[in-house]
């Protein structure tokens, strides 16, 4: 080896060594946000746009704002295939990553959420099951590390009944009306039943429950029963292929689509496009706006896709589930910001981020600053209320796009909150949990 080669090697080694402390310092100033995603498997069509929205917003925060309080956001995806067992493995794999461990887990599955709730309380890593998971977790006294804001299935079910009452000309007109619930035969699908049963007793409508087994590719008998029952309204708690088939079958029996309302997991483009024109008029609940007409979308287009709209659309930009991923990521970022206001602008532990989640106060002004004015509704989380019982809007498919057809509908807090507290107390008793006191 000649002198020249030795010199080059020596310089290379010095250069490499000199970067070590720098990269180590950089790594120390990172906040690790794990991403449980499902980009493969039967539910991938829903998992991909959501994961893309979440990923893009995290990248936007780094690219546009330089992170949160100068702390860079680092993400890592773990593929769950929407499988509970794999989801738990992902949690175990990712919970210790980053200089301070995982910030907050977004399980993206009610099944995974149920499994992670006890673990997260031990590991002191918060879980944000945004609009899904265990509804009772809205009671922060029993579930200090689980959050399900902005609103839950029970709140949504009560908002649906309010919407139906409004369309029928008043809540008193619900008496004698027939409502059918077509639901995924799983813990998720059964979530609205207690609320709908309670409201049936209160308002006097008739309720028929129709379970559809996974995956829900064949629903002829369900819709034959609807033909026989002749309901005034059909509510659906579906998921995956069940949604597409239900919309198609409803059209096949000439059921009026503007009297068919899906849960917010039954209201994406994927759920209506296969049915073609038959899906026109179909309704679905939501807690955020559809489309890409908000300033945050312009920012995403500019910073993530360099203005290339075709590329952005190829990554689901502006689709319903993409937007939901963006909303989820925004909640995480704003919780981090709130946590930094309490504990300082540095990488934070899960326990510290939990404080931020409980202090989260998204005002209308703050949403406007984020470019999301009208995109989601303001909310304020507290130690006592991890749900906030946020309002729900109804959107309608016109054959090409989703549009709002209602104002924000406030859930029936007087009905839902006592149910939440009762269920949380039962959970606490069953699991030997002493509820904490919220000041």
């Amino acid at each position: 080896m000649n002198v020249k080669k030795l010199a080059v090697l020596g310089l290379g080694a010095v250069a490499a060594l000199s970067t070590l402390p720098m990269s180590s310092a950089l790594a120390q100033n990172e906040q690790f946000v794990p991403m449980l995603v499902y980009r493969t498997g039967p539910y991938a069509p829903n998992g991909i746009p959501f994961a893309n929205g979440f990923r893009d917003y995290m990248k936007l925060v780094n690219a546009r704002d330089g992170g949160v309080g100068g702390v860079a956001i680092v993400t890592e995806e773990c593929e769950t295939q929407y499988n509970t067992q794999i989801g738990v493995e992902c949690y175990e794999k990712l919970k210790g990553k980053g200089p301070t461990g995982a910030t907050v887990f977004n399980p993206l599955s009610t099944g995974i959420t149920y499994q992670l709730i006890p673990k997260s309380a031990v590991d002191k890593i918060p879980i944000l099951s945004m609009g899904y998971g265990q509804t009772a977790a809205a009671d922060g006294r029993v579930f200090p590390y689980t959050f399900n804001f902005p609103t839950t299935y029970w709140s949504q079910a009560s908002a649906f009944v309010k919407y139906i009452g409004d369309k029928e000309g008043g809540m008193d007109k619900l008496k004698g009306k027939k409502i059918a619930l077509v639901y995924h035969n799983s813990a998720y699908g059964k979530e609205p039943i207690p609320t709908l049963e309670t409201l049936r007793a209160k308002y006097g409508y008739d309720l028929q429950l129709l379970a559809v087994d996974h995956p829900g590719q064949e629903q002829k008998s369900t819709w034959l029963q609807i033909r026989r029952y002749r309901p005034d309204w059909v509510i659906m708690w579906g998921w995956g292929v069940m949604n597409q088939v239900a919309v198609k079958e409803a059209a096949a029996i000439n059921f009026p689509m503007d009297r068919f309302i899906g849960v917010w997991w039954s209201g994406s483009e994927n759920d209506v496009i296969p049915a073609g024109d038959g899906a026109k008029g179909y309704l679905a609940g939501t807690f955020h706006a559809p489309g890409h007409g908000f300033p945050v979308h312009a920012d995403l287009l500019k910073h993530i896709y360099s203005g290339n709209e075709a590329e952005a659309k190829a990554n689901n930009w502006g689709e319903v589930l993409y937007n939901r991923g963006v909303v989820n990521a925004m909640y995480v970022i704003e919780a981090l910001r709130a946590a930094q206001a309490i504990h300082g602008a540095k990488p934070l532990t899960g326990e510290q981020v939990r404080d931020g989640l409980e202090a989260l106060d998204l005002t209308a002004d703050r949403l406007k600053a984020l470019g999301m004015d009208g995109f989601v509704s303001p909310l304020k989380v507290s130690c006592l209320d991890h749900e906030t019982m946020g309002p729900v809007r109804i959107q309608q498919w016109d054959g090409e796009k989703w549009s709002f057809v209602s104002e924000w509908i406030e859930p029936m807090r007087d009905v839902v909150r006592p149910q939440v507290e009762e269920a949380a107390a039962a959970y606490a008793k069953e699991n030997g949990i002493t509820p904490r006191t919220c000041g």
Partner: protein
Amino acid sequence: MEMLRALTYGPLVEMWEYPIFLAEVALNGLLTGVMYSLVALGFVLIFKASGVFNFAQGVMVLFSALSLVGLMEHGVPVWAALVLTVVIMVVLAMVIERVMLRPLVNQDPIILFMSTIGLTFFLEGFGETIWGSNVKRLDVGIPDAPLDIGGVLVSTFDLWAAAIGATMVVVLAIFFQKTPIGRALRAVADDHQAALSVGIPLRTIWVVVWSVAGMVALVAGIMWGSKSGVQFSLSLIALKALPVLILGGFTSVPGAIIGGLIIGVGEKVAEVYWGPAVGGAIENWFAYVLALLFLLFRPQGLFGERIIERV
């Protein structure tokens, strides 16, 4: 008492009182049964010719439908996309014969079965890699308006599906009974060694039978994909074909049809009339119970070949 009524004679009374609705349930059951038969046929063809239970048949349904809709999304006209998809399925059959079946000649059936599980995972990943994971709308022009026949509502799409299914069975029957290749297929199915001894090329036969199974998968994929959109879940439709196979027998084309019709009507009647008494969602497992009941009396299935072994 109310529960007992709902579980026993209550539904029978309802059937008697509302015969038109019963006719609607039965007709929809029959039409759904044809759709099950379409999937079951693919299994039967391969099992009949090679004794292999093709675990990948469900994924072949998905793969063929993905290929068709993928080509159509790239601007290929429907007829050309259909032809190209058939070509893709034939090429796939040739590759399967060369890479999977030929090296495993004379291996136990369980080894071949395991290889089809591998094929399932490969085709799932390969299909998604090439055509993506989004739900794709498939519209090949089959009308889908509801039709009221004397108070009985049926979907015109389902009627078309039944007609296409029936045509396919007739074509397959002619193919098996009247053509030299069909006769060769039956010879191979009856006895591999004897067929080889009279000069029937086993490899060619395998390619032919996997190609035909691929085309049957394409027809099933079009029918099911038009209903639900083309997506990963399409591969799970194979689960609906299993009770049909158990009931109809793994080696009988008419068995797949009759089995499908019995399962279709049986599960719909059970779900609509007895389901509500037990919370619903009974049709999936009821289909298997029905199939197992038949097995008690005919272990080889309704039309399966009776196995006689000399000892």
